[in-house]
């Protein structure tokens, strides 16, 4: 104690210091340490959360990307298949149309030929009658007189008989 006294120790000063220090401790605890440590914890937590969220989002994005890639591949294949099917279908359709057209054309030709044949027959028949009448008229002129009906009929019959043997 004597040593302390000789160094200038005074109890009131000591007491003052203890009181002041405790007040300062209280003030700093209230205004510095508590709020700052709280906000540091908060910030640390929010950074951790942000990192975790970013990690999750990254994984999510990666998953989505893979998903889309596989879906895109599937869609591409499907498109390929659709095109192939359509091409095949088109080919078949083309063949069918061509065949039908060919058949149609053949039929039309046949019909036309039949028509022609029929017309020809009719024309020949008509010509035959005409020729008979003309022959009678010509014969009449040649004979110089009109022939009687009986003669006429007789002549026609003879003529027709003759002509009928002819090949047209």
């Amino acid at each position, binding site marked *: 104690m004597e040593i*302390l006294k000789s*160094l*200038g*120790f*005074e*109890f*009131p*000063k*000591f*007491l*003052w*210091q*203890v009181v*002041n*220090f405790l*007040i*300062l*401790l209280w*003030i*700093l*605890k209230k*205004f*510095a*340490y508590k*709020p*700052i*440590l709280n*906000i*540091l914890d*908060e*910030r640390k937590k*929010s950074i951790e959360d942000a990192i975790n969220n970013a990690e999750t989002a990254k994984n999510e994005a990666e998953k989505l990307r893979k998903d889309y890639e596989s879906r895109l591949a599937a869609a591409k294949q499907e498109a390929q298949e659709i095109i192939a099917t359509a091409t095949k279908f088109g080919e078949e359709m083309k063949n069918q149309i061509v065949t039908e057209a060919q058949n149609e054309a053949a039929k039309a030709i046949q019909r036309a030929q039949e028509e022609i044949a029929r017309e020809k027959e009719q024309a020949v028949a008509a010509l035959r009658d005409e020729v008979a009448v003309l022959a009678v008229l010509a014969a009449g002129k040649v004979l110089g007189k009109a022939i009687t009906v009986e003669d006429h009929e007789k002549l026609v019959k003879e003529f027709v008989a003759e002509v009928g043997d002819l090949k047209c």
Partner: protein
Amino acid sequence: MSAAGGGEHHGPVDPLITIDIPGTDFHLPIYNFVITSWVIMLILGFTAYLATRNMKRLPQGIQNLWETVVEGLFGFFGGLMGEERARKYGPFLATCFLYILLSNYSGLFPGAAMIKGFVPPTNNISITAALGILVFLSVFYFGIRAKGIGFFKHFFQPMAFLVVLNIIEELVRPVSLSLRLYGNIFGEEKIIEQLGEMVPLIVPLPMMALGLLTGAIQAFVFTILATTYISGATEEHH
């Protein structure tokens, strides 16, 4: 209230003012260092208040400064005694450090010696003794709070007959803390004062620069020792 001060040539008069408590015989002395202490408390308290009044998630200005100080100190204590105990005992230790640092530096304040009531608190044995005793008591307080009666076991370790030595060691701690801090700051202040009296210009400057270093180192040493004492008292033995 009566002013006891006079125009002494050397050093400030102590106490600067004495306040008479009405109705009693008690006179409350307001010492010079008390005023300096109050200024230090005011600076620390007010800046802390400003820093944490409206805290932002992105720190700015004074908030940034205080955050750096608190994070740095608590991080340092955490390195010595672990995060959890640093949270418990950090406020006491950080306050020791900040108060001692500003006290040591207060003597280097330009014109400090000329202002009445401006005396570095830490160049007075009464003040450093108070700080030493506070550490001594806090070791017991924290130790008993952490380990209950088991705290006293360590006086009998490693062997029971060493109890006397252990007690002496425990008692010497506040003395060494007080005297180291007092001696360093007092000596440095005296040297600056003497140099200043002999050659007021420039010559004291290197000593003052050294004072900046000493002030920080002494604050640091005091705090680090207090940290190890408290750490030792609250450690879980396996």
